[in-house]
Every structure is written in C-alpha cells, then in structure tokens.
C-alpha cells in the first residue's frame, strides 16, 4: 500500500512545489512522444519518474507492466494521439493538487478502451435505420453519439482530427502546438456544437471525450489510467477497501491509503 506522504520530486521536495508548468510539460511531452527520447524514459516520466516513491516501484513487476502497456493499440497516427494528449490534459490539467490527464495515463487508457469492446459499441444496439437519417425522428433521443452510425473509435478519430483541422485553420498550428487559450477556444466550440462534423455532432464527441477522460483519471489502475492511484489520492477516494464498518459512524473524515483491485484481490 502507498504511504500517506505527499509525493516528492527528485530533490525531495513535495511534488506540488515543482515548477513544471502544464504548458511546459505538454511541450516536453510532445518532444518525448515525438520519438526523440526512448520509450522507457517516456514511460518513466508519465508514471511519475520525478516521483521519488516510484523508484521503489520501478524495481518490481508492476511498473514494468505500465511501461510495456503504454504503447498505442488503437491509434495508428501519432498526430491523433498528440491531439488526444493535449485535449485530455485541458479537461483535467496538472495543477498544485496533483497530476493531470497525461500523467494519470488517460490517453493510453482511452487508446486501450477504443481498442476493446467499448470502442466498437459491442453491446449496443446497432441496427438500422439510424435516427440521423430519419427526418421525422425525435432528435432528443440519447446522448453521446448514441444514434450515430459511427462507433466510438470512429467518433474519436474524426473528432480529434477535426480539432486539429480547426486549430490549423484558425491559428495555423496543429492543436497540440496551439496555446492553452487557443485549445480551450476550440474545445469550447466543440462542446457548444459550433463546429460542424459529419456523422456525429461535435457536442456528442465532446461528451465522449470528457467522459473517457474522467474514466481514465479515476478508474482502477488495472485499466492503464489513474496511474499509481494518483487520481484517487487527489480525490481522497480509498478504492477497493474491504470494510468501512469501523469508520462509518464517526464524525471524523477518514483519510485512508487507497487500495487497488490488484491489492484487494491479492493474487
């Protein structure tokens, strides 16, 4: 189980005191992810390589697992993934409370989810006719692209590329290289459905993007997000604790070490 000390940086300072601006971090990530630096360093950075506590974890299997699972299964174009990194980080940025979406592993989490059953809407009803082709249909039915013929993987690809396209059109830079203000402007327009997309509403794509970002930040680490349970630590959610019977009646707030499913299942 993790200790209750705040995460420390390489100099032994509490991590939140690091002067690592988010935009700066994004820029660095872009470089790293651009292939200039090796994968293990990339993995180390994302899993909190600056975090002293992770030095211990680096020696055991679980961190190795994180490294080898941080490769793209779904996204083939690196540029799509760079846009995803930047967009998720805007939804949940790194700040003094702790890591943002990138450090939490959110982009890789989303990549894995899109490569699986969720990405192809495996358990959803997928029979035609689709409502977007029905003129008289009630368009109020269902959120999140539910009535689109596109599956979630396609919606993500089209959405990320559209965001990149908008950025180049408006600011003459790719989305990941745009400034924070520019990225926020574009994302705000997607959220408000002010950007026209084919096959799905921009607002529906945005709902998916936001939902998936929160999932990646706060899911059990087994899915590749919420790395080192940092999301849970920020929120003071203790995870898969077996029993609260001894705390439930108390007026005091229970500050507990988080427990992952790997810890909980114990095998």
């Amino acid at each position, binding site marked *: 189980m993790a200790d209750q000390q705040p995460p420390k940086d390489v100099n032994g300072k509490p991590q939140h005191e690091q002067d690592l601006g988010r935009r700066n971090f994004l820029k660095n990530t872009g470089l790293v992810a651009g292939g200039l630096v090796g994968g293990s360093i990339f993995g180390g950075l994302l899993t909190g390589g600056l975090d002293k506590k992770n030095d211990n974890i680096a020696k055991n299997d679980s961190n190795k697992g994180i490294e080898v699972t941080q490769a793209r299964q779904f996204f083939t174009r690196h540029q799509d993934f760079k846009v995803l990194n930047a967009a998720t980080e*805007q*939804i*949940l*940025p790194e*700040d003094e*409370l702790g890591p*943002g979406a990138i450090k939490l592993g959110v982009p890789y989490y989303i990549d894995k989810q899109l490569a699986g*059953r969720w990405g192809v*809407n*495996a*358990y*959803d*009803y*997928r*029979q035609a*006719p689709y409502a977007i082709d*029905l003129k*008289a*249909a*009630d368009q*109020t*039915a*269902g*959120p*999140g692209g*539910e*009535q689109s013929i596109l599956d979630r993987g396609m919606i993500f690809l089209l959405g990320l590329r559209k965001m990149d396209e908008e950025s180049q059109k408006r600011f003459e830079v790719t989305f990941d290289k745009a400034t924070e203000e520019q990225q*926020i402007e574009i994302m705000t327009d997607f*959220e408000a459905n002010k950007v026209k997309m084919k096959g799905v509403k921009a607002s529906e794509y945005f709902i998916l993007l*936001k939902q998936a*970002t*929160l*999932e990646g*930040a*706060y*899911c*059990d680490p*087994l*899915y590749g997000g919420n790395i080192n349970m940092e*999301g849970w630590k920020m*929120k*003071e*959610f*203790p*995870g*898969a604790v*077996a*029993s*609260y*019977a001894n*705390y*439930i*009646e*108390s*007026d005091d*707030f*229970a500050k507990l070490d988080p427990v992952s*499913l790997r810890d*909980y*299942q114990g095998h």
Partner: protein
Amino acid sequence: MVKQLKKVDAVIVGSGWVGGIAAAELTKAGYNVVILERGKNKKHEDYIGTKDELRYSKRYDLMQELNKDTITSRNSMSKEAIPVRNNMNARLGNHTGGAGVHWNGIAFRWLPYDFEIYSKTVERYGKDKIPKESTMQDWGITYDELEPYYDQYEKTAAISGEENPIGPPRSDKYPNPPMKETPNIRLFTKATKALGYHPYRIPSANASQTYTNPDGETINGCVYCAFCEEYGCDFGAKADPIGTVLKTAHKTGKMEIRNDAFVNRVSHDGKKANGLIYTDTTTGEEFEQLADIVVLAGFVFTNTKLLLHSKIGQPYDPKTGQGIIGKNFTGHFNNLSTYIGARGFFEDKKFNNFMGAGGMGATIDDFSGDNEDHTNLDFLHGYEVHYSQLGSRPIANNAVPYDTPGWGKEFKKNSIKYYNRNLFITPQSGFLPNKNTYMDLDPIYKDALGNPLLRVTVEYAKQDIARAKAGVARCEEIMKEMGADKMNVDVVKDDTVFDHKFYTDHFFGGAIMGASPKNSAVNTYSQMWDMENLFVVGGSSFPHNSNYNPTVTIGAFAYRAAEGMIKFLKEGGNVAVKPLEKNA
C-alpha cells in the same frame, strides 16, 4: 425446427426476485420448475473482489446486452420512436438473479392509498379531482390483504429498518434493526425534524447484522463498502435471489435454471398456454419447454413484449382507450421523478461520502402518497424526500457548483474539493398513468432474433410536472436547513419532456392487475384473466407507480402469485374467484 422438451409443472421466464420466489414456493410444495434465464450463469463467487466502478457502473457488466434486445422510445404518438442503443440510457438487469443482484436494497412498502388510489381520491376530493387524461384505477386488493405477503418478503430478504412514525400498520417489526447511522444521515434527520417532519431510516436489504431467514438461508451483516448499486455483493450481505430464494429452490432438487435461454414467445392455443418457445443463444437452437403453468417473471418490458408478440390478450389502443396489454406504463423518470433535487456544497464540513450502502439513508413520508392534503394542489400522489448514502464513486461523482465550468482548471479544483463536501437529496415522486403513456410493438426495429422490439411512448402530464416542482422545492428547504453554503437546485420546466432514459429500473404496467377483466390483464394473484394457466408477475402488473422503490412490493406480489400458482396446480380455474387462506 423447434424441439419439444418434456413437460414440467412450471416454466418461468427470468431468475430475478419474482422468478426466484415462484421457484422457491413451487419447489417447496413439491412441483418441478424450469427457469429460462437469458443472461449468464452467475454465482456469488462471481462478485468477490470486483469493486470496479468502470466495469460495473460505466460498462454495465450486469445489465442487459442491448445488442440482443432493447426498446424504442418516443415522446408522443405523432413521433417516430428511436431505439435505446446503449446502456447509458437503459440499466436493465440481466443474468442469474436479475436486477435483484444489482439493486441498492432500498426496501419500502407502498401505502394503503396506492392500492385503492381511485376510490380514496374520489372519497376525499370528489371525482373532478382526477385529470381527464388519467387512467388511474384501484388494484383490486387492499393493503391489509397484501400485508402478510409484505411480511413474508421482508423476512426472506433480511430487511433492516425502524418503525416509520407515520407509516402504514405492520403485523410485525422488521426482522433486523436499521443499519448504522452516519453523520450525513444525522444531519438530514436533524434538519427534517427541525422543520417539523417525521424522518426515519430507509428500510434496507443490506442486512444490519448476520441473519438467517425462514428458509434457512444466511445473509451476512453489511460492511458498508459502498458497492451495491450496479454491483453484486462482495460479502453476501445484500439480500438477492441467488443467496435466498434460488438457493432455497435449488436445495429441493426440483429446480433447473437454464441460462442463455432467450424466450421468444408463449406457445398457446388461445385458451391455454402450452409452454415457452426459446432460443439457446449459445447454439441458436430453438426449443419448446412444455409446462402445466407458464410464468412470465421478466422485467416490465420482457413481460409486455412476450404477451404482445404471443398475441395474448387485447393490445391497448390509446386512440380508443380499448384493450389492456401495454396500458398504464409508468415509472420513476430520470428528469422528473428521481435523480433531481437539491445538492448542497459545504465549505467547512467533510463527509465520508465514499462509504455507505445502497439502502442506507433516511427519508420523510410527510408528502408521500396522499399524506399531504391535495385539495389545493394541482397534482395527486406525492413524494418522499430522502438522503441516501450509497457511496460516491470517483468516476461518476464530479459534482461542482453551477458557477463552475464543466471541465478545465476550475472544474478540476472544485470537483476534487467538493467530492467529499457535497450532499444530495432527492424527492422520489409517484407517477400517475395517463392514456398517452403506453407500450406496443415497434413497426420497424427488431431484436437479434428477428422479433419486433417493444416501443415505449411517454407523455408527461401537467400534474407530474407540478408534483416534481413541489418535491424539488421541499429539497431546497431541507438542504438549506442542513446548512449548505451553496446549492445546485434542479429546475423542472413546464415543458419538460421524457428524456428517453430508462435508467432507474423502476418501470411498471403493461399487464396491470385489477378486480375485473374489464380493466385489467391479471387478477391480484397475477393470473391472466384470458389464460388461466399463465401468470404474469412483477412490476408489469402495477397499475401506477408510487413514490417508493418497488422491489418489496414486487416481492410481496410474487409471494401472492406463487400462492395462486399452487392453488391453480391443485384445483385449476380462476384462483381469485374467492379469497384464499394464507399459505393455501
């Protein structure tokens, strides 16, 4: 080629609470039973060590796979219905134990008023009080007649609770004391008392202590781990069909549960049901399971679809008001009758919101049913205002005050800050049936086996909107008294329409009960008037929706139905002609 299978005494659709109760009672009485369950084979063992929010709450691991079967939905007869395509909008139980496995465990009885709603309304306010579009009716049974079955269900399901100070009469106390009390619950209780209301603890199926039920099944004491809703219990501490009635039936050696068995229709000759036609979804083979009695114990949608698709009874026609099957669809609707209310944000208090149990909380009944005088109100029926501490999980719970953006820097700060500093109270309200809210078969969309989907049409009536507004206003009053520094209070607009979310799992109607075949599909033993060896049991038989969660009332009617089935197997005929002795 349909392969006929050897006749059994009873064949049942669905292994949830209703199918389980029927199976337990029939097998104890010596009859052999086959349950056809379309979901997978599940045991308690499947739920050990799986406190996984993503898997169960976001990927809906226990819910009906909509690629096989779903519903279509629309707001009025003039619109085209659209299929509900993903589980975000339809959280319907599946697998062995059905919705009884993933329920929260909130275990209310309904009110005497509910069962005689028409007569009691006319008696107190006169006929003119009933809106023109309303199709509300008495159920053909009184609370007092149903009470012994309530008691039987509560004892089977280890219900933990305390006396409701203004509740209906009980023949016995709850089998277990209420669950532990949290600071959150104490705050709600104190505030509602200060306002002159009558708070009491929500009765729950999350057992407050280890308990052995009358069938000899043990339910463990709850440890408040907060994984109830959408989850199977890690500890066997939430009463569910797997650990109670199905276990009891299994012990007799007279029950078989056949999983992956998707029932297509009831085979019949117009007067008598022969059995059930189903597809083994692992092989695609089709079978006919013959039986002396056929029991539809599926969810509302399943029961109604099977009746319509099997051409049993007269389908309801909203234009003429004729016909019964599909009539009086009601529910707890997402943007109207529950999940709306007041959320309070507290600057200086920090709560253990991540601890809890699905059925843990407190409520007031001062506005439930007809407890409030409706003479000067523009709605009938009411709402119970409750605080429930079912446990906030981190993906789903990111509540922020209204003035916070929905993402970005400020969102992150506030969603983290308030995660353990916000409380939500909701007025769960009744919904009364109207002539334009019903179910029929969809003319376009088909399920995976080529059967038509069920089509749901919902129109909110004025009184339903008015009731919701009154309930939210009460939540605001209480949350203020609880001392919230900031509040998000939901706004119910006059033009609020059904949002096509079938999320609450509380839906009713389609094969409603009554005292006469003129206004009902089944009698109060859930036996079809038109086909005496066919029992259609569950929420489908409820002529309207109360402001309470339904499971205990469904359980009570399932016990009554099982009694009717046994009586029918012994004597035949319409079992409701004369009142039965209990445990006949």
